């Protein structure tokens, strides 16, 4: 059982504001799901390596260049932000 304190802690890690009814609901739902997946404890995993990637490819590199062709995209991306100034995304003050 995941208690309400634990749920509040997880929510704060996930930067999600949850109200009391959600805390109650998630406590119930997550407990049920985790009870279900506990069946994995029965599986013998000795000498089995984890699947770390869905393909066998290793590091894939590319050149770190400015895309001159699509400069307009950068401008439009910044415009998608709720607030911007001089081509920069503006956020609330971080240091008090």
């Amino acid at each position, binding site marked *: 059982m995941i208690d309400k304190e634990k749920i509040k802690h997880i929510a704060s890690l996930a930067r999600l504001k949850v109200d009391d009814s959600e805390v109650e609901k998630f406590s119930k739902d*997550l407990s049920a799901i985790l009870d279900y997946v506990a069946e*994995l404890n029965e*599986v013998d995993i000795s000498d089995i390596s*984890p699947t770390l990637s869905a393909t066998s490819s290793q590091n894939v590199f590319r050149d770190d260049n400015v895309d001159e062709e699509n400069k307009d995209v950068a401008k439009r991306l910044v415009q998608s932000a709720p607030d911007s100034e001089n081509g920069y995304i503006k956020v609330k003050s971080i240091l008090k």
Partner: protein
Amino acid sequence: MDFTKLTIREINKSLKEKNVSASELTDFFINQIKDKDEDIKAFLSNDFASAKKQAKAVDEKIKSGVDISILAGVPSAIKDNILIDGVKATASSKMLENYIATYDATVIEKLKNQNSVFLGKTNMDEFAMGSSTESSAFFKTKNPNDLNRVPGGSSGGSAAAVASSEVVFALGSDTGGSIRQPASFCGVVGLKPTYGAVSRYGLIAMASSLDQIGPLTKTVDDARVVFEAIRGKDKRDATSVIYPEKLQERGLKGMKIGIPKEYFIDGMDKDVEKLIKSEIKKMEDAGAKIEEITLPNTKSALSVYYIIMPAEVSSNMARYDGMKFGFSTHNNDTEDLLSVYLNSRAKGLGVEVKRRIMLGTYVLSAGYYDAYYKRAQQVRTKITNDFKKAFEEVDIIVTPTAPTTAFLFGEKTDDPLAMYLEDIFTVPINLAGLPAISIPCGKVKNMPVGMQFIAPWFYEERLFRSGEDYEKLK
């Protein structure tokens, strides 16, 4: 003229022989949408004006004698988590209600190069998280076979649009069954390609090691045509791979079909089971060799999926922070930085998305990582190894796509586990990264049933050849 029965190749032929123009075709399907979508509600948004323009461009090409591609002038629908430059992409979330894509997904670029005509963006479960399209923040899509039932999900809008002949084909995305299960529920063909075969660039990410884009179509050959058009390595998706040279495939006759006994379980609809078994018998009568096989770790697949998927979801969803794009409380002066994070996410995201973020954050948090996430990745290896071993014995594996037919609205929304069980036959394929196709195989109480064909990695052509042979048996 009724264009709803035409395959993509037939449309291409008719266009080239000037029996029909792309504009006529587009107008016909626009009218289909106008007639039907008030009831079906497959579409979140339409842009008929630009569709007409795209069709006109194809007609001009034909008129001037330029050769046209196979998908030129073919009307399509795109799931709303795939980006089209300048077009809204909401992923059926309040978070992205007003978000306009700033670039084309690679699959869209490829379809545009072929001059396919986009008729609109389709409804889905919010951020592709769900199996019924009920978690869309906007409205519910109806199953064209019975308006009281769900179309399946998460690509429910795409499946319903194809099933009701509002478009010729649609794109969806499949993380744990989200193309195949709605295809099964609506009675259309749905392909989940091999992981890495199709670029994910421009697909709004859900669980990156599982997501693939694929087609929903009326026929197996249509699925082949669309798949051939969208596949290929893309430098903008580092997990995409060079697709191996296509091998010749023989089709059903003499083919060894494996039937995994773990896919015929208690709790499965008995009529669905009976139908699947009788269809397998038909393939045997047509010359296929049927072998019972075992995939012993199947029973763990759903548990593995419900650890790995939310873990990846919680990480992918971190980008919706109210800072860069999407819903934000930033312009509320009373809020500080932390409350912008907390409130933007609380107000912008729906309950299923939050549930998965919470679950994923939990299994990745300090002290639990090894017990859940690492263990799940190890069991994932075992599931993949089961398939590797099976494909040493058989050419293809056939199973039901889903344990039931389409259920009623609200039937499973209060019980997340019951909803998750809908994916029990489809998630193992994503965990292993295999290609699989759902093909309509009949009806139970007037609702469609899909049969799932699974091939080894990059053997999509084997799915198409055997699937086409099966279609002819019906």
